């Protein structure tokens, strides 16, 4: 076979290959892949840049496909929400302060309240660094991981620059969600040798519930005295990193016993003049997910998407339990092919009497509030 024949063969095969690759499945899958890629990019950027000099690092929950969620999410405080009874965090007391600033606080607190927690308490050490996987909690939709890092006197913890979770069987890393972390505070002073962190990982319900997992961490640190300096964190030469520290564990099977409850409200309403429907609500111990669908195909285009989202950006999710009302904060959201979805923390373990979604179409105006009772 000469060169020309080879070239013609390859060109002929390119046509076959194009037919074989065919359509990408459902319409819009490619667009969704690009959207999710952008979203991942934002998420990874936040992981790679530990916050400096603050008691806690807030991983911004308002990421979501960047296209729709460029304006920071503002939540109007509800005057009717009250505190439910205080929970004793026991061995996890160190995480309680951090959790109060966390978007998944309600999920974690109800999990602690109902002992829906798996204490791990495994540590691994390398040189000046020691990392502990303190605990996890999980349901079909997510895993919340609580971990801590300490250093000896030779280093001060700047942050945990990477926290990942790998499913040992599949050999693949779980999708990372938001997190929060910060130095320990003792009597009002930051302890630069101890650091707490929490990270969310999303699960795909269509895949088997994970069993063996491997968490791996990388700690960022600086020399003693540097944490108090304003420029610390901006000069790469000052930063030191631990090797990847890995901890394996088996996820308690109890977490897969709570099936996700799915409701199809099919409530239609208007945002910015476009019809939207509250298409689906998912309820699980750690997550409340609402899915909105655009009624008109034309509304899925970028400028209209943004307009619709901004019109319905201000939401509240209020759960009524025996002790009063709890606002479930929105942790994040995603654009979807059909519209968009929003994730909220959950207190389903508390068996709430009601769960109300409020969408304020005009900030601060009661007249512009759409209300949906989700547990009817």
């Amino acid at each position, binding site marked *: *076979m000469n060169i020309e024949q*080879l070239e013609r063969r390859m060109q002929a095969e390119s046509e*076959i*290959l194009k037919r074989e690759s065919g359509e990408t499945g459902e319409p819009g899958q*490619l667009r969704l892949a690009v959207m*999710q*890629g952008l979203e*991942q*990019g934002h998420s990874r950027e936040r992981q790679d840049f530990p916050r400096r000099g603050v008691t806690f690092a807030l991983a911004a929950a308002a990421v979501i496909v960047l296209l729709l969620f460029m304006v920071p999410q503002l939540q109007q405080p509800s005057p009717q929400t009250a505190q439910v009874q205080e929970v004793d965090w026991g061995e996890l007391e160190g995480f309680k302060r951090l959790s109060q600033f966390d978007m998944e606080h309600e999920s974690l607190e109800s999990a602690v309240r109902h002992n829906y927690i798996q204490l791990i308490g495994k540590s691994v050490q390398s040189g000046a660094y020691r990392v502990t996987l303190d605990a996890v909690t999980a349901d079909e939709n997510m895993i919340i991981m609580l971990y801590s890092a300490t250093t000896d006197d030779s280093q001060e913890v700047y942050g945990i620059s990477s926290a990942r979770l790998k499913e040992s069987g599949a*050999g693949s890393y779980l999708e990372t969600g938001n997190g929060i972390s910060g130095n320990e505070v003792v009597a009002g002073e930051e302890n630069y040798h101890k650091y707490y962190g929490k990270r969310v990982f999303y699960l795909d319900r269509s895949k088997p519930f994970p069993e063996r997992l491997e968490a791996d961490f990388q700690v960022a640190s600086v020399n003693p005295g540097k944490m108090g300096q304003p420029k610390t964190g901006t000069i790469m030469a000052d930063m030191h990193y631990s090797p990847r520290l890995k901890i394996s564990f088996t996820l308690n099977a109890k977490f897969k016993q709570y099936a996700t409850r799915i409701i199809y409200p099919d409530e239609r309403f208007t945002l910015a003049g476009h019809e939207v429907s509250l298409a689906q609500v998912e309820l699980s111990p750690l997550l409340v997910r609402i899915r909105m669908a655009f009624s008109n195909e034309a509304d899925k285009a970028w400028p209209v998407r943004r307009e619709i989202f901004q019109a319905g950006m201000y939401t509240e999710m209020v759960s009524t339990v025996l002790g009063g009302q709890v606002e479930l904060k929105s942790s994040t959201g995603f654009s979807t092919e059909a519209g968009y979805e929003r994730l909220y923390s959950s207190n389903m373990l508390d068996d709430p009497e009601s769960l109300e979604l409020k969408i304020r179409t005009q900030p601060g105006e009661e007249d512009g509030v759409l209300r949906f009772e989700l547990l009817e």
Partner: protein
Amino acid sequence: MTMTRVEMRKLTAAVPQEEGDFYELVLEHSDQLYSIAYSYLRSRHDALEAVQEATCRAWIKRNTLKHPQAFKSWLIRILIYVCIDEQRRRKRTVPAAGDPMAEAGACDNTARLEMLWVLDQVKPKYRHVLLLKYYHDMTLSEIAETFGKPEGTIKTWQHKGLKQLRAIMKDRREWYEY
């Protein structure tokens, strides 16, 4: 590689920093990205994931793009690295019992896509050139821009790749005839 008018409008100064513009630019090239990914990975699902990962990496590295007019070739290069990473990962993974070894239908096309299978035996840098030129209609100039190499180097790689391909095909014929 000339830019479309849309690309120029969006890349006025440097890399598009606005997420919306970035998204639209990537989307404009997404069909070709998917097609290239599929030719490397031979799986629709994996090709979509590769496009997703390439978009993610491109966003993170957006400030490293020196010449805005090279956005497309830069993006394709990122995608190819993603595909190479996935191919390496596949080599390290032991399939579990019951796992399909390949996407349904792909194996059946071994005879029809013989050249593509044979290309796997060609030296990687030659293989990339042959794949992009003959399976994705890219010009040598575009390929050179993608890999940041002089066009003369790409021509040499094309020539050497074809020679290797010819040698492999000759060996295969002799083996079958034996």
